């Protein structure tokens, strides 16, 4: 069983950081709902006031790791231009997608949207983490801040979902592959 370095980085970017972020987003929405849906503006139990800030900070770290690994590690492999005369485009995903009308829209709409919309996520969630830490217990008394947190967290989930969906579809149609081969399980071992 083996995997190439490019596949491994794609996996770390998408299934590692990105998928974890999506899962965490659902948790953040549940946490916000649980904390602020009581109808009465209350101070949370001692210690719980920090949980939201810590949780959103971890999410912000995941979001930054996702966009930075995507933009500066995986994307250059995706968009690499093939040398003139190359007929096998398997190592050049962007060119491979654009070479056929049935797949070109995955790049022209999918990647073009994904590469930009994903950057809204770390901005939104960093703000949410800052506000949650800065206001901590006071958040319960600032409903407008709560609404902003809800709005930005939900929107970041949508943006991350768009990026994740197109990332998966792009990798299905034209996987980023190549580089050194890493043997996960050596031949003869089970």
């Amino acid at each position, binding site marked *: 069983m083996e995997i190439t370095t490019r596949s491994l980085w794609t996996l770390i970017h998408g299934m590692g950081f990105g998928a974890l972020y999506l899962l965490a987003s659902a948790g953040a929405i549940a946490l916000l709902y649980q904390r602020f849906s009581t109808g009465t503006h209350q101070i949370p139990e001692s210690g719980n006031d920090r949980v939201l800030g810590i949780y959103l900070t971890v999410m912000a770290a995941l979001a930054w790791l996702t966009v930075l690994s995507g933009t500066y590690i995986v994307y250059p492999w995706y968009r690499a231009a093939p040398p003139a005369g190359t007929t096998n485009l398997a190592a050049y995903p962007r060119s491979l997608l654009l070479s056929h009308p049935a797949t070109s829209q995955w790049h022209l709409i999918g990647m073009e949207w994904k590469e*930009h919309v994903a950057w809204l996520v770390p901005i939104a969630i960093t703000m949410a983490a800052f506000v949650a830490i800065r206001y901590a217990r006071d958040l319960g008394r600032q409903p407008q801040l709560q609404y902003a947190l809800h709005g930005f967290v939900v929107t970041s989930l949508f943006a991350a979902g768009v990026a994740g969906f197109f990332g998966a579809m792009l990798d299905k149609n034209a996987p980023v592959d190549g580089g050194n081969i890493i043997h996960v399980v050596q031949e003869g071992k089970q």
Partner: protein
Amino acid sequence: MSTQNTILADTPAILTNGSGAAAILAAGIGSFAVAASAIAADKSAFLKSLFSIYKPTGALSGETTVAILVWFAAWAILEVLWRKRNVSLLRINVIALLLLGLSLLSTFPPIGDLF
């Protein structure tokens, strides 16, 4: 447990909302900067070349770097202006979420290409 769940109305003074408002509006501005720089680079060959600060990633590297710088600059300026004040958060939220929504829409290529 009930003694710890104190009704906030009975508790003393709260922080001003200016710092939160600054972060919220700056996030809206930063998000919009992502979309605006992407559209600008798409329309101008000069900007596309200028934004290619890291060649393997192309214009995306500059577009996002500029947007992040705009975001941080807006945040710093608004923080200095508002940190000790209470501002109209409803208005700030509406503007920030509108900017975020516009960014989502205008990064979608069929809409971004209309500009």
